[in-house]
């Protein structure tokens, strides 16, 4: 069901139908979601849509992203697919917000195709690796450990993001579980085994302005990575660290991200 006030359309990529959500008016702002993707429109998106025309294409294999991830074997496949997706969603040349894995893809898109991205807001992006402070492993957790790994409000996170919505039939709950699992699978298809994919060697190609946003309490990618990113980027950078927020900045501090 499409959330109230949100328009939903779909675009075809690789023969799969991919969901694109849209809300608000003004200059377009693309949003690429983080790990787990978006089951529903969120207060974080609403905060962005208060000022901008927010366009949210689903990432391959994420909720709304079909089985497109199954076609993607290499980083080149993922970047090609991201460029296709941005074009199809009407985001060619737009400003982009990318969170977590979406941040990695937004940064890669900017590095490979400067004209595609006007400016970037990267929220706790994947992509770099500091062996003295390695990213946490989100793929090897027991179910009861996930909420606290992602959020500084684990009880609410568990209820909102990790539990099927109330009132679902058993069949709907099975499908909900499948969709959630698929999103994790898709993320691991790109990220596992969590080593560097080469972004470090391409950061200098990102010449647009970049805002780096991090939750101070991020337990997956430590906030120290903000400086690591900033030191490699070629354009102007700004860092915003949000106290009290974890990796799920969009959940923990939905109104805090300043564009």
């Amino acid at each position, binding site marked *: 069901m499409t959330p109230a006030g949100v328009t939903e359309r779909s675009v075809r990529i690789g023969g799969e139908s991919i969901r694109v959500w849209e809300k608000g008016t003004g200059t377009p702002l693309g949003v690429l979601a983080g790990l787990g993707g978006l089951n529903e429109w969120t207060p974080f998106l609403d905060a962005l849509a208060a000022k901008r025309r927010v366009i949210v294409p689903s990432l391959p294999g994420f909720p709304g992203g079909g089985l497109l991830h*199954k076609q993607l074997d290499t980083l080149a496949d993922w970047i090609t697919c991201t460029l296709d997706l941005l074009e199809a969603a009407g985001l060619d040349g737009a400003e982009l917000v990318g969170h977590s894995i979406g941040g990695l893809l937004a940064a890669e898109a900017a590095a490979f195709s400067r004209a595609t991205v006007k400016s970037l807001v990267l929220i706790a992006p994947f992509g770099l690796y500091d062996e003295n402070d390695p990213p946490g492993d989100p793929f090897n*957790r027991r179910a009861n450990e996930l909420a606290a790994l992602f959020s500084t409000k684990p009880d609410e996170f568990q209820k909102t993001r990790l539990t099927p919505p109330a009132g679902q039939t058993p069949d709907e709950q099975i499908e909900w579980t499948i969709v959630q*699992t698929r999103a994790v*699978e898709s993320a*691991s*298809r790109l990220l596992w*085994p969590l080593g560097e994919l080469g972004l470090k060697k391409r950061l200098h190609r990102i010449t647009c302005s970049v805002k780096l946003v991090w939750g101070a309490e991020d337990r997956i990618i430590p906030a120290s990575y903000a400086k690591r990113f900033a030191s490699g980027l070629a354009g102007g950078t700004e860092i915003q660290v949000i106290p009290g927020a974890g990796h799920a900045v969009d959940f923990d501090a939905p109104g805090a991200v300043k564009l």
Partner: protein
Amino acid sequence: MKLLWFHLMPYTDLPGDFTKKHASVWVDIDSRLFDPAKAHGMYNDFMDELEFAAEIGFDGVCVNEHHQNAYGLMPSPNIVAASLARRTRDAAIVVMGNSLALYNPPTRVAEEFAMLDCISGGRLVAGFPVGTPMDTVFCYGQNPSQLREKYLEAHDLVMKAWTEPDTFAWNGRFNQLRYVNTWPKPVQKPHPPVWIPGGGSIETWRWCAEMDYVYAYLSYFGYKLGQATMDGFWSEMDRLGKDRNPFRAGFLQFVGVAETRKEALEMYREPAEYFFNRCLHVDARWANPAGYSSEATIRARVASQVVAAATKATDAVAYGPPSFEEIVDKGYVIIGSPDEVAYQLREVAVNMNVGQLMMLLQYGNMKKELAFYNTELFAKRVAPQLKSLFEDKWEDRWWPKPLPREDRSTPRPVVVR
């Protein structure tokens, strides 16, 4: 029927407080617990046990592959199999197996298995497991979302490498090789029999049926839980129009035999508890990375009571190890006198319709003397009661076809000076 002797090669010296002080026997097991000098003794004892099993008449000896695992000390089963190829004469050498996606390029498996088949004179059974999530995803860094596709491509490549006489190019999704020309080739034509160790996934059953391979259900939880899986397997074979030849199927079973049940309960308590407590102390976080199981399997798992029961049993082991009484009552280990064990195993084989029965007669911290005793008593007093089962009605089309005995080389005895 075929009676095979399977060795996991467990490290036998994990401390008594292992499950309290350590999170997992697998993946991130504390390597400070590993004593190479003790492992020297273990490996040699284990290889003695395998050789003894072959010598005393088991139809085959089985080895398998695990990584970073204290209950499975064989990262490379092919190394042990190579030694067995020289030190045994007639037994099948069943490598269960090589996890195809872990080899780069996978033609390495075609080469090593062909070497084993040549050295042994055609006694190899080629096992191709996908591999557990612990071994493949976490220890070997394989992508859980690509593992099965990679596995299937590697399988196709190995088969072509064995059967294609001309040098060929392979332009696969995961492997590109300009010149494939595996040398040596296996003795057995068109290739050694293929057995697929698997869990309860319906895709694996269908694939085994399509390829005409043996499906081997390697569960540690005995025939009572295994029955439901094997029922599922056979009803799928019925649906696909395949015959009920019991040699299509393999099953793994722990056994402890002694003169009396009372004696057996005393003798096998410690090694059984050691295995089901310390060896199966696997941290649940390694067990199920997203993408490892297909969506169809996840759906079936959530929906099916059968598999839910099996999952629950696995969880029980992961979180609260079973008592010895449970181990025996639930049939994880079949314990008793030779006649009692023979009776139960006959029931197991007939009820599950399994012709390739793989026995674990050494497990946990069982000492060599007891392993020999168990093996000898089984061979002399249990096996004769089971051997003829299925043989009159069915042909085992999945058994190695070695060179004639008189054409096989005899290794020169080594004189230690």
